[in-house]
């Protein structure tokens, strides 16, 4: 019990440090939020221009929930890249902290940050589009899918985080490309059915596909979560598989980095 408490306290160190960083970079955070809101509004206005409230809500859901998932992914995936940039990576890896403790802290902050960021965006969109009626939506279904999807994205984020560990300069770029591919195949702004056949097959591997399908079913049609097992089960399976896989891959990558001297500061 004492061991667990100690590890949770160490996890909190990463939560607190990331909060400090967010606070210090508040100007960039504000700029990022304005950019995200402007992007979501621009896309959603396509639906408003078409005079189709259903299309509008489809686009709003895509913009808002992709924002959440991508923010969670980015924070976790950049865990290593940021430390490498600042030069603190060796100090963090020297500390008597288990790697899952570090990643847990990063994931908790990523999810909290993603929720706040997305809530702010959602609030603006609801003000901008008063025709959206939250009272007719099944918010419970949407919330459950976001929660389940978060676990899968944590696992993918952990795997993406090892790229800057393995490839000192190109790792962050590869992470960015991976995130872009998830955006393309997951049906964020359009049905997956419009994609070429091979992309539709790939879309089944993206947890965002199931999250967005579930959220849309809940918010557009008011579908209860109990009627959506076809989307829940893949998400649960991905969460169960991807988090341990992410931890395992991270451990292997750390060992490789220590063998080849890639933890060393660059730049």
């Amino acid at each position, binding site marked *: 019990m004492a061991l667990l408490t100690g590890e949770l*306290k160490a996890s909190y160190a990463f939560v*607190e*440090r990331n909060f400090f960083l967010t606070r*210090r970079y508040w100007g960039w955070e504000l700029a990022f939020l304005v950019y995200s809101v402007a992007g979501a509004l621009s896309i959603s206005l396509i639906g408003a221009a078409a005079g189709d409230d259903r299309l509008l809500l489809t686009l709003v859901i895509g913009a808002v929930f992709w924002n959440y998932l991508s923010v969670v992914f980015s924070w976790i995936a950049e865990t290593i890249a940021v430390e490498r940039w*600042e030069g603190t990576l*060796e*100090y963090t890896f*020297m500390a008597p902290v288990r790697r899952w403790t570090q990643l847990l802290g990063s994931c908790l902050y990523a999810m909290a940050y993603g929720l706040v960021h997305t809530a702010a965006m959602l609030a603006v969109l609801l003000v901008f589009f008063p025709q959206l009626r939250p009272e007719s939506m099944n918010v419970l279904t949407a919330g459950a899918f976001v929660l389940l999807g978060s676990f899968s994205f944590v696992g993918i984020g952990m795997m993406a985080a090892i790229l800057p560990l393995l490839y000192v300069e190109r790792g962050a770029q590869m992470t960015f490309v991976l995130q872009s591919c998830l955006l393309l195949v997951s049906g964020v702004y359009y049905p997956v059915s419009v994609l070429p056949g091979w992309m539709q097959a790939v879309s089944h591997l993206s947890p965002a596909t199931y999250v967005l399908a579930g959220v849309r079913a809940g918010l557009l049609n008011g579908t209860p979560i109990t009627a959506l097992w076809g989307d829940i089960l893949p998400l649960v399976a991905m969460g169960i598989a991807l988090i341990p896989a992410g931890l395992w891959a991270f451990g292997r990558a750390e*060992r490789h980095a220590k063998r080849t*001297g890639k933890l060393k500061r660059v730049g």
Partner: protein
Amino acid sequence: MTTTLAPELNIAGLAPDDAVAFPVATVAPAPALLVEHVTKRFRPERRKPPVIAIDDVSLRLERGAIHGILGANGSGKSTLIRLVCGLLTLDEGRVEVFGLDIERDELAVKRLINRVSVDAAFFKKLSPMENLLFAARLYGLDAGAARREATRILGRLGIAQSRLGRPVEQMSRGMQQKVAIARALLTSPTLLLLDEPTTGLDPRSKLEVQAFVEEVNTSHDATIVLTTHDLAEAERLCGRITLLNGGRVVAEGTTPELKRLVAERHGQPETLEAVFMTFTGRSLDDDVEEDGETDA
């Protein structure tokens, strides 16, 4: 706990390795740091042969010592420090810290050691206090106690309380290095690894840091490994000195022993600079890329 042969049982003519065949007579405390036949290779490019950064290095530091490691750029000093910290894996050999194996007892060893490197690496937008608080939490320290202790240590190093809330990036290089030293001391390491901690500091800051290193050594009972290019600093602080060249130990002893050696055997002046030149065969100004680690 390790066992060693009592000095009185040593038989003339036997090498230390031979001597262990005899019955162990006493139980001695574990050394603060034991490095045995450690080798580390890097392969900068796949098709090229590996570069040997550390070549069969052995060291033994007793508790409370300040041990200097000297060598030209690229001699393997920083690689050796990284190996002891667990930031690099060993290709051959073993390292123990107070009797704990750095690979088998990784977390326990990490609690005992800390390091100050030549580049003061921080989250530059965060304040010294925020950076130190993060480090303290990683080592399991209570936040309130960590704040008080950080303030005390930084004050002792000449950093006013009014500076503790401002971003590190607004501090001079010397002040940043002092914060780095404070970060290491905050965790009360029993083995402190100082990798060129005074490089780039002005003379006053250098003297303050050197005085503080001495204080930490005596008042905190910390064993210290110091790598430096400043020979006067090594002479002032270090009880024993190891010289590395090309990843190998080429000489080891106290400063007077090493000076006497180069004077008697090589006819050189009795200075530490002559010791350095004799054993490394290189100029102090040689600017060779440090270590053989890959950056690709």
